[in-house]
């Protein structure tokens, strides 16, 4: 069995915040965003509405694990961006998901 990359395990530590954290990383993949923009972007991309409590629970964890970082802003809404570690974690998680998706599609094709 293929060894799971370390970056991929980072999000597994987040418990119920794993999925919101993944959505936030995806949202930040095309550039920095502040909280409200993330909520709107995630709703557009994934059809999931994250409440502020869930959003900031995930942001605090991502920041604590140094997967994202806050940018300084004059506005009271701090934008966040992906760190290099966050980008690697996102790539690793998406690759792992892709392996599962392909396996599922192969099995469906032969069913």
């Amino acid at each position, binding site marked *: 069995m293929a060894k799971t990359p370390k970056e991929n395990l980072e999000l597994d530590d987040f418990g119920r915040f794993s999925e919101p954290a993944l959505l936030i990383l995806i949202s930040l993949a095309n550039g920095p965003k502040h909280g409200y923009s993330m909520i709107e972007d995630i709703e557009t991309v994934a059809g999931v509405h994250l*409440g*502020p*409590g869930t959003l900031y629970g995930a942001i605090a964890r991502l920041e604590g694990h140094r997967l994202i*970082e806050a940018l300084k802003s004059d506005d009271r809404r701090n934008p966040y961006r992906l760190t290099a570690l966050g980008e690697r974690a996102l790539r690793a998680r998406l690759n792992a998901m892709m392996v599962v998706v392909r396996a599922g599609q192969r099995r469906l094709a032969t069913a």
Partner: protein
Amino acid sequence: MNWLLRLYPTAWRHRYGEEFASVLQGQRLTVGLVVDVLGGAVDAWLHPQGQTMELEITKGETTMTNEMIARCAAGGPRISQRDQKMASAMMLLGALGMAVAYLVLTKLYHSAPAVQALGYAAMPAMYQFYVHGAYLRRRRIGTQLVVTGGALAFIYLITWGACEIAVRL
């Protein structure tokens, strides 16, 4: 709706309060929203994520200190520079207070084991004062009293017991 923010710990509000409030303002008040924020508040109390750390990561700027802290084991201590200064001040003041108490009690009771214990307890107590200044200042007063008071009492009782035994040997 900003009253919902008060449900969160002080350190959390200090770090995310303003932006959280701005996101809240854009939301419609629903039962779902209140449940979500309540859940977030419970999580923030149960699983603090090191919000006391006040690294200033600015756009396009990476300082050497930020880099070092980011790379060291477990992310380094989760306390700000201000907390560290406060902790050092509390440690020095605590040690000074204990030294004065030791001198006064020695003058009054000479070298009674209970007085000697105060002198020996000063060293571990200094560490406890530092911990208090660094990690406990923003906690509720009850928590501060139980943790710091309890630890100091425990340290003192152990050293007092040791001193009582030592004079009987």
